[in-house]
């Protein structure tokens, strides 16, 4: 649309013709109040707060429905307009309970803000207010009708945004109520988006209600620890008994890739950190074979001496290391460096949920072919192959739905099962189970409507997950690359399962691949690693097989549960010295000889990479006595083993020694900004070996594809990493297709973590009941 010029409050503004006045004004910094207007949702014009005066028009006009045209003149603030808005608030407050002192929304309530701005402090009415009892619709959602101003944001967010349509309006006039369409209970995805968009305290969260006031919390913007989509969450943290405790998780900071979105896991699943089963002290197996609490010093000494002894007597090749899908990039990088340079072993692996290695292999030498989530959000055409994002990757599903709804993107789905996103699809191709390998030939034949439509697309984003492995990934990528030289003619996204699965793969938790998918046999820049073993090591099952034969002297497991989740044989570890760093006494940790209580992702700083390659800063929100970040545990273990800590973590310039663990700033991720100043003063920037950003410096220096936009990252934005950056491919890289075990988490499960979230289990129970009851009807 051509740009038009119009006047608002005497200022000349320019916007494309047809832009809504409210949007044009907000963009120009002119605030127009509104309750019902919500960007991205259908227009209501119901609240009448956005009224403005348009020249030559007799009545006040609603800015949310006025489309700008050339030469129009508007006034957005005047005594007449203020009077109209005050009149509306006056009417709203008539039936509003004014229980602000106890209302969850008090302090972050749009009605409160508007009342402060426009007045209406005194009521004109003598009669009783309408009252209705509060209702609980699910463990997550409560509804307080008297507080509700009927802006219909919740019904639209649920319907248009989530495509769930669980909320509606019942009765009419002043008796209207928002109501679950299923009756008195919510049968939905329990995403809690309705609570987030509620401008007042009508919809409240089961996990947060009446717990605290917003101003009593510190709000920390970090990354969700549950799935691999990389939603930003805002954690509300409060000091309780000396600990910083997470009280609330929501989407107050809408600046992340997820925009408005957050799912049930991100919103309610944070309570695992407070689980009573959480480990808070190290444990060491005593002479009687029982795990008993120990001090950090005792446990570190026990683990370090044994690891050192095994390395020296049986060689590094008899030690195995299993890394985590949820720890930070810095921790994963450090872990593999620790394994390779301190333990001298390439026996390092992690629970692989999708075949990132094959993807990297397929894209080797091709730049700019991966799609970030922002690319997907703006893509005109998307081919989604396999998986069920609605259940397993809620943010991806949201992004796809929103792109179809608002940008008229064309979504093509090829799947062996029927998935909900078909409702947004332009065309669907059914495939037999295990029939994914035939997809490219179906497309190439170009004789079905589906194939014709896909082939006719000028640019395409291809999204796939663990349905493609090994050669399958390479074939699919090769098919896509044929589409043309323009980067936008095809981009790919691979979907994995956990919050840093991509980071674990990118950071080289592989027996045959170094960080950035560099083969250990051709280490390139990694040749600087002192004592890097030349031969590829053992995969996760191979380590257990070796252990079973008595060939694995020690196993270090960081944030993983191979016994509980990968079905590894517990008995195999009988003669292996096992060290585990974890939050809980998992099936694997229960077998360990030394256990270290680890901090969760919400209790540390660093970075994580989403499955789409978007890297984001993790900030420390909660603080819990007794636990330490895996980063610190590894550094202390290395130090205890007598390793050169400075070689492991490049902190400090020569000759400067720093104490371990004094650097609070390092923990909070604040050190880096300070570092700019320090560097300018010629002072030492990285003073502590516990500063994850010291390792991030090295990652940037050594890992192909991790050239980061630092300023953007530190500002809280997501930055790109590149996966096809490593040149050439190694004949030695093993085919990991058989090692992929997808998690198939649902909306309410989150691998091992989900087991410790009371809120998620409660929601799952509620939904299961809802399904059973409706089946019985």
């Amino acid at each position: 649309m051509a740009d038009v010029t119009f006047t608002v409050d005497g200022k000349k503004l320019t916007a494309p013709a047809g832009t809504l006045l409210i949007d044009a004004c907000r963009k120009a910094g002119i605030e127009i109040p509104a309750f019902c207007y919500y960007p991205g949702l259908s227009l209501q014009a119901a609240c009448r707060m956005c009224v403005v005066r348009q020249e030559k028009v007799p009545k006040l006009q609603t800015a949310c429905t006025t489309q700008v045209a050339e030469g129009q003149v508007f006034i957005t603030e005047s005594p007449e307009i203020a009077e109209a808005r005050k009149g509306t608030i006056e009417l709203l407050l008539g039936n509003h309970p004014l229980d602000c002192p106890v209302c969850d929304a008090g302090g972050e309530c749009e009605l409160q803000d508007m009342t402060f701005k426009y007045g209406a402090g005194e009521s004109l009415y003598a009669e009783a207010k309408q009252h209705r009892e509060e209702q609980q619709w699910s463990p997550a959602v409560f509804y307080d009708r008297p507080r509700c101003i009927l802006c219909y944001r919740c019904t639209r967010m649920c319907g248009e945004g989530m495509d769930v349509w669980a909320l509606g309006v019942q009765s009419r006039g002043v008796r209207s109520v928002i109501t679950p369409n299923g009756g008195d209970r919510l049968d939905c995805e329990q995403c809690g988006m309705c609570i987030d968009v509620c401008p007042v305290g009508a919809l409240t969260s089961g996990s947060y209600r009446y717990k605290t006031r917003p101003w009593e919390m510190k709000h920390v913007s970090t990354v969700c620890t549950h799935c691999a989509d990389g939603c930003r969450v805002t954690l509300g943290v409060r000091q309780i008994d000396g600990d910083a405790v997470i009280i609330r998780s929501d989407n107050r900071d809408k600046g992340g890739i997820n925009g408005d979105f957050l799912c049930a896991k991100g919103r309610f699943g944070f309570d695992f950190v407070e689980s009573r089963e959480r480990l808070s002290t190290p444990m060491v197996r005593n002479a009687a074979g029982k795990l008993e609490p120990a001090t950090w010093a005792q446990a570190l000494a026990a683990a370090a001496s044994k690891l050192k002894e095994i390395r020296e007597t049986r060689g590094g090749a008899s030690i195995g290391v299993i890394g985590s899908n949820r720890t930070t990039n810095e921790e994963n990088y450090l872990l593999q460096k620790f394994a390779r340079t301190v333990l001298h072993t390439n026996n390092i692996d992690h629970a692989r949920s999708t075949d990132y290695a094959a993807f990297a292999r397929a894209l080797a030498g091709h730049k700019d072919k991966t799609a970030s989530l922002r690319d997907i959000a703006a893509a005109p055409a998307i081919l989604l192959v396999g998986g069920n994002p609605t259940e397993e990757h809620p943010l991806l599903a949201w992004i796809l739905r929103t792109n179809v709804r608002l940008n008229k993107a064309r979504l093509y789905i090829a799947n062996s099962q029927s998935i909900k996103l078909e409702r947004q699809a332009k065309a669907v191709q059914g495939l037999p189970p295990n029939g994914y390998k035939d997809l490219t030939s179906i497309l190439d034949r170009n004789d079905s409507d589906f194939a014709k439509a896909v082939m006719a697309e000028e640019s395409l984003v291809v999204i796939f997950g663990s349905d493609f492995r090994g050669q399958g990934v390479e074939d699919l990528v090769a098919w896509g690359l044929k589409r043309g030289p323009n980067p936008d003619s095809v981009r790919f996204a691979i979907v994995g399962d956990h919050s840093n699965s991509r980071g674990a793969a990118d950071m080289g938790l592989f027996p045959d691949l170094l960080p950035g998918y560099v083969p250990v046999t051709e280490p390139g820049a990694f040749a600087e690693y002192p004592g890097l073993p030349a031969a590829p090591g053992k995969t996760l099952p191979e380590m257990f097989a070796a252990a079973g034969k008595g060939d694995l002297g020690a196993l270090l497991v960081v944030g993983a549960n191979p016994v509980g989740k990968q079905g590894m044989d517990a008995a195999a570890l009988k003669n292996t010295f096992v060290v585990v760093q974890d939050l809980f006494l998992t099936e694997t940790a229960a077998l360990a000889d030394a256990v270290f209580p680890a901090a969760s992702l919400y209790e540390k700083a660093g970075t994580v990479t989403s499955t789409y390659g978007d890297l984001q800063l993790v900030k420390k929100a909660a603080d819990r006595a007794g636990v330490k970040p895996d980063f610190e545990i590894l550094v202390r273990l290395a130090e205890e083993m007598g390793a050169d800590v400075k070689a492991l973590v490049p902190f400090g310039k020569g000759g400067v020694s720093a104490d371990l663990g004094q650097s609070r700033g390092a923990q909070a991720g604040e050190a880096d900004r300070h570092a700019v100043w320090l560097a300018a003063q010629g002072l030492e920037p990285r003073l502590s070996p516990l500063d994850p950003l010291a390792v991030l410096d090295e990652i940037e220096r050594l890992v192909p594809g991790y050239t980061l936009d630092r300023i953007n990252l530190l500002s809280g934005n997501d930055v790109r990493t590149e996966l096809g950056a490593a040149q050439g491919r190694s004949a030695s890289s093993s085919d990991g297709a058989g090692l992929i075990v997808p998690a198939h988490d649902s909306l309410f499960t989150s691998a091992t973590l989900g087991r410790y979230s009371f809120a998620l289990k409660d929601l799952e129970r509620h939904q299961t009941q809802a399904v059973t009851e409706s089946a019985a009807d």
Partner: protein
Amino acid sequence: MPRLVSHPDEVKIVTRRFGQGAANIDRYLELGGYQSAKKCLEQGPDWIINEMKASNLRGRGGAGFATGMKWSFVPKQSPKPKYVLVNGDESEPGTCKDHLIFLHDPHSVIEGTIIAGLAIGSKLGFIYLRGEYRYLLEIVEKAVADAYARGFLGKNIFGSETEFQIITQSGAGAYEVGEESALMESLEGKRGVPRIKPPFPAVVGLYGGPTIINNAETIATVPHVIAMGAESYAAVGTPRNGGTRLFGISGHVERPGVYELPMGYNLKKMIYDVAGGVRGGRKLKAVVPGGSSTPVLLPEEIENLGMDFDQVGKAGSMLGSGGVVVIDDQTCIVEFALRTISFYQHESCGWCIPCREGTDWLKKTFTRFHAGFGTASDIDNIQHIAQNILGRTFCPLGDAAAMPTLGFIKKFRKEFEDHLNGKPCPYARHEELAAV
């Protein structure tokens, strides 16, 4: 069947076939029925629209928009189907004209719908009856079935290559659905709340297709306009107000009923002559000229008032739906205002804040006020609330509640003041109000 009234001053055009069994298709044909539709089929859309423009027929629903003009807004070419929608959601208190049309002459509505369809190139019309008219639905459905049986509706109407179908639908009991866009929502099976305009129905209407929505009386008038010729029809009324109007005269008159009178007919004459004067020889206190949403008029304001859209507008009220409510001097205006606002409070759809909350507080305040517990500030508060509704609501129904309220206070402030200070209502009918 309600008793029909008549008066020598009536000009029977739309009511021509009333009381003659015209609901029967044979009788309707005997009385000249379906000739207009046949003629229109021969003449084509441009001719029809020109005739409608020339007839000066204005919408009978209340807003008085020129019918020919409305039809001409529909784009000739449309990728989506076009629709004709007959608004039979007659719910404005004081209005009961469409009811008689459906009862006595349902085929005139069907014939008018066909003509409207021919005019805009539509193949499908809907006749929407208010929920409370469900008992009329049988009559209308029978008439539609008969018209199908005779080939007046269907794939080839009147043996031509032209298709036109009609579907009847009953509402669920909501005044709001009388608003055209809310009616479309209701017809589509959704909550009866209005839509944002623009786009207007002529461009994006029912199921997103171009749609014309006309009041049932307007549609029933169409065949008569075609039959008698636009010029002759226009000659009956006043300038810019063609033809006749069905005035429903109710309230305190000797002979209440629906009378078809030429547009511009004198209101005083209508009350005293046509309707036989105020009941029991009492004095006239006030008149609501066009249904309960129109501001009240005083006896001195109706002396020379011709009942057409323009003259009533000039007098500070509206011709509205033609429902004339006559109020005698034994009526408490506060009670009348309370009864009126109770209706709007009950019927507010709740979509927008001013109407939803405002009508409720008005009702509450009026109830207390009339019961003798009013305070001096209440009168100003009532005015203040009504002002907060007026012009601020999503659809015109907020105005429909605010305008009469403001009118009552403006013209009868003294009577409101008489209710103050614990004084009982001078008309002493408190007990009955408990039921309101």
